[in-house]
């Protein structure tokens, strides 16, 4: 667990990309404070900049303007010290490495940041993600859900404080997605990580998040930042068919429809 009270703090943040000398802003005026240990979901239509925002927090992209700190310091420091972990939409497993070798990747790359992983730590993470028995399989032998489990295991294995997840379940069928949502919540409760979870599914965003940040496109901006704790239990649990959850999903849908 991190000693910082704030996992992510952004003030007047502008994100986008540079095209030669031109800067193309996708999302602007982002003011956001994510306390340590929070599960924040980020929802928005395609092109609103939600993945780009996540990449700025991960230090995969530099911001175009404004201030951003991750665990009280620069995003680069958090990335270099392995305090942030990233899960991609397509799992991004290396096809020539087995499940075990993919999970151990953080121990073999990263220069002096690559610390050897103990067998017990690897066994623990394999157990946590329900991957026992699959260690020697290759990515092509896994289902979509299993692949994402391996990707999450790889992101968690060297114990980051913040897990950044970019539509990790976006390509999965609904049943698998629901199951992985429950597993992710369980991991979050067990580990106390801060999770920033990008999705374009309103149901998923409401079901998973303690707070939900809704982004609008053209121009990209924060439409709403809503606390969902009042309609969930203390452990961020809820039932999908709960009327309050259903009503919240409807409200978020209307908000998005009005903005687009």
């Amino acid at each position, binding site marked *: 667990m991190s000693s910082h009270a704030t996992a992510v703090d952004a003030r007047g943040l502008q994100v986008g990309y540079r095209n030669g000398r031109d800067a193309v802003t996708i999302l602007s005026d982002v003011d956001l404070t994510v306390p340590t240990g929070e599960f924040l979901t980020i929802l928005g239509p395609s092109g609103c900049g939600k993945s780009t925002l996540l*990449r700025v927090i*991960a230090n*995969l992209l530099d911001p175009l303007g404004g201030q951003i700190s991750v665990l009280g310091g620069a995003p680069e420091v958090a*990335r*270099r010290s*392995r305090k*942030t*972990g*990233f899960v*991609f*939409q*397509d799992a*991004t497993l*290396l*096809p*020539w*490495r*087995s499940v075990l070798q993919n999970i151990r*990747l*953080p121990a*073999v*790359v*990263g*220069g002096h*940041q*690559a610390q050897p992983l103990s067998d017990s730590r690897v066994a623990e993470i394999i157990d946590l993600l329900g991957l026992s028995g699959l260690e020697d*399989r*290759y990515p*092509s*032998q896994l289902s979509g859900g299993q692949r994402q489990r391996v990707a999450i295991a790889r992101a968690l294995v060297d114990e980051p404080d913040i897990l950044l997840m970019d539509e990790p379940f976006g390509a999965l069928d609904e049943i698998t997605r629901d199951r992985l949502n429950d597993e992710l919540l369980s991991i979050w409760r067990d580990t106390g990580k801060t999770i920033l979870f990008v999705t374009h599914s309103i149901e998923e965003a409401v079901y998973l998040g303690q707070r939900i940040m809704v982004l609008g496109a053209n121009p990209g901006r924060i439409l709403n930042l809503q606390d969902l704790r009042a309609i969930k239990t203390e452990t961020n649990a809820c039932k999908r068919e709960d009327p309050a959850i259903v009503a919240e999903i409807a409200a978020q849908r209307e908000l998005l429809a009005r903005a687009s």
Partner: protein
Amino acid sequence: MSRTTTILAPIFGAVSILAAWQFLLPLSGVPAYIAPTPTKIFSVFFTQSDLILSNFVPTATEALAGFFFGNLAAVFFAILFAYAKFVRMAYFPVVLFFNTIPILALSPIIILIFGLGMTPKIIIAAIICFFPTLVNMLRGLQSATANEEELFRMLSATRFETFLRLHLPRSLPMLFSSLRIATATAVIGAIVGEWIGADKGLGALIIQATFNYQSDKLYAAIVASSSLSIALFAMVALAERWVMRGWSK
């Protein structure tokens, strides 16, 4: 389709063609000096095995050495071009131009420079292997997805680690596909070199047999050179299966 059928079908195909060649071709009136029967061709391997072997060994040596050095140089330059942008911008167009020169036009110059020994044939075989492997390997080294690059950046991978653990493995499917093609072109290179100036080797044997109307020897030399390509191909396929184990499981 059963496994037995899968194995037997191509054997049946080959045997039926050989049988038709053996029994139907003489009936059609094609003279033996144009197309000798398969049994006559294969008998050369037994009656004149020394002649075939003494010509097979130089060609095999040239093709193997050309294959090895040509592909090794291609891999080296592909890595150089992939990571040294200025070198790629400066010299890749030169390599492209060099590739447009027909190997048949280039071969006499190489023979002029290096004489009639094995060296010019090895160089010709190496040149013919070089370009496809260079282009494929370069493309392979640059074929990692944006997410894979980001994953390695996320892990603060050094440039060498990214090369070794991402770009190099990513390039292997394309490298092996060009190595498979190179098994045939290396033999072609060695034979072309022998045509232009050599007194031994399968290329020299083909020329001598053609001018002496010894069509059984000519066809036997063709079978021997084809066998050489097949053997090289099998070696590459075995290496590929071993190196890429796990990829396609």
